[in-house]
């Protein structure tokens, strides 16, 4: 019960803060870019709209995930609102899990709102409903949950600026994980090779969730790969939340 209460309160906090401003901003940019596209493109308008639209949604969702995630726990500690929570029958584990689910709900609402705008625009330019786009949004949502869990982890022990740097770094690294294998083959030291191999498994492989090319270019997708990505996301999120909880259990609030 208190996880639900904490999650809804976290959602309220995010929704009454920056998220809607960002959504409005996104809506305006998106509407403007789609108008521009219809004027400027000579080829397949729908394909270009899908390409730019999905990229824009991805960008803004990641921004929202990072900015809300890095601030939430830090703000609770800094403004001492956490005193009122942890003095109630709420364990620290529940607090972190509640925050995560609140953020997950925030991202879900943001994503549904953006996806809705996107589908309407696609329909307006003559495109139809595509199941693959729905799958794209689902995979993006999984990626966003990992980003939220990462930002929550950093937010539980460091300042928003440092959390931002760490989370963005991990996000960027997460999208170039394929270079690790190439990089590994260039290393001459077996120790460094092992270390790189270990990093490959520890760092988040966010490229697993990027199926934009398959969606825009209508390429085939393998069910096994999708299912593995879902499992990967669940395990990775649980591991991140476990580490966050372990750190948070030891925190003292001055």
């Amino acid at each position, binding site marked *: 019960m*208190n996880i639900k*209460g904490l999650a*809804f309160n976290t959602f309220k906090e995010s929704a009454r803060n920056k998220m809607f401003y960002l959504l409005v901003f996104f809506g305006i940019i998106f509407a403007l870019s789609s108008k521009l596209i219809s004027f400027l493109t000579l080829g397949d308008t729908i394909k270009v709209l899908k390409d730019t639209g999905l990229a824009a949604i991805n960008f803004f969702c990641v921004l929202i995930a990072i900015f809300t995630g890095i601030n939430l726990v830090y703000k609770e500690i800094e403004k*001492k609102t956490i005193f*009122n929570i942890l*003095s*109630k*029958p709420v364990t620290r584990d529940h607090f972190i899990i509640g925050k995560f689910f609140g953020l997950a709900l925030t991202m879900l609402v943001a994503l549904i709102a953006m996806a809705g705008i996107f589908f309407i625009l696609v329909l307006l330019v003559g495109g139809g409903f595509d199941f693959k786009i729905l799958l794209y949004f689902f995979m993006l949502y999984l990626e966003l949950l990992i980003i939220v869990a990462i930002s929550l982890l950093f937010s539980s022990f460091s300042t928003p600026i440092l959390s931002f740097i760490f989370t963005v770094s991990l996000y960027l690294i997460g999208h170039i994980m394929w270079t690790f294998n190439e990089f590994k083959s260039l290393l001459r030291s077996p120790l460094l090779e092992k270390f790189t191999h270990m990093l490959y498994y520890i760092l988040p492989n966010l490229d697993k969730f990027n199926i934009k090319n398959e969606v825009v270019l209508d390429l085939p997708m393998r069910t096994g790969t999708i299912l593995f990505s879902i499992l990967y996301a669940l395990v990775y999120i649980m591991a991140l939340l476990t580490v966050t909880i372990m750190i948070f259990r030891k925190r003292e*609030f*001055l």
Partner: protein
Amino acid sequence: MKTLEITNLKKSFRSNFLIKKYHILKGIDISVEQGEIYGFLGPNGAGKTTTIKCIMGLLFPNEGEILVNGQPSASIAARRQIGFLPENPYFYDYLSASELLHFSASLFAIPATVARERIDLLIKQVGLEGHEHLKLRKFSKGMTQRLGMAQALIQDPVCLILDEPFSGLDPIGRKEFRDLILNLKGQGKTIFFSSHILQDMEMMVDKVGIIINGRISRQGQLSEMIASSTQYHEIVCSRISEKQLTKINPNFVSHDNQFIITLDNEADINLVVESIIHNNGLVIAVNPVKKTLEDIFLKELREV
């Protein structure tokens, strides 16, 4: 029956570079009986808030034990029984008073219908009627303090831990809070609070603990502390000349055609009164002057 029991509580912090260790609490022992109001007194930096944070599980003690009705105070079972008002409380400013109280109720898993009734009652009790739907960012310090008290009482706790509950309140607010705390005591609740406002404390508490430099320097029933600490006696008299009075007892001051004689020795009272009457003077009053809580507190401070 003991509601709150603190035994040998020790807490220290390390400096930023982990070189020096600061001992904030050096072995605190406190016990508060059920239905008692305990005033926790001490200068700034003495360890009052640290003690309270240890009780609430926000800080982890290095040594010692804190029990609430026999259960470790940081446990979920104990926290169900405690209402806590932190010092200078800060709440989510995007919520209204009513929303915050509903949120607090949800953390205790109080059913919505019960919560609604309880919140209506609490809003009235703390004097926030008409402001329940106002966003907290528009609340004054006094209003925030009142809301803090309301959220501390949301689950009808058996024990209240209040850190500086009178801070930010105007004289009317302080009086209302005093009445509320005494009313809660009347309901059998145990109240542990820290305050700098000694007059308020003196009017309410059963027991006092004075903490100085991380140690309890004095602890006991306030009535006993004050009863055992009559400082001197005053005799107020008039219709007597200064010359005559100097012969009886030179230790006096004049004020509004009256004289106030100070007697350090109780045994001298009868003799002085008889002498005044013998000189056709009028004895208006004989007053024992007792130490106030402030006097006791300042004495403790000087002695440490």
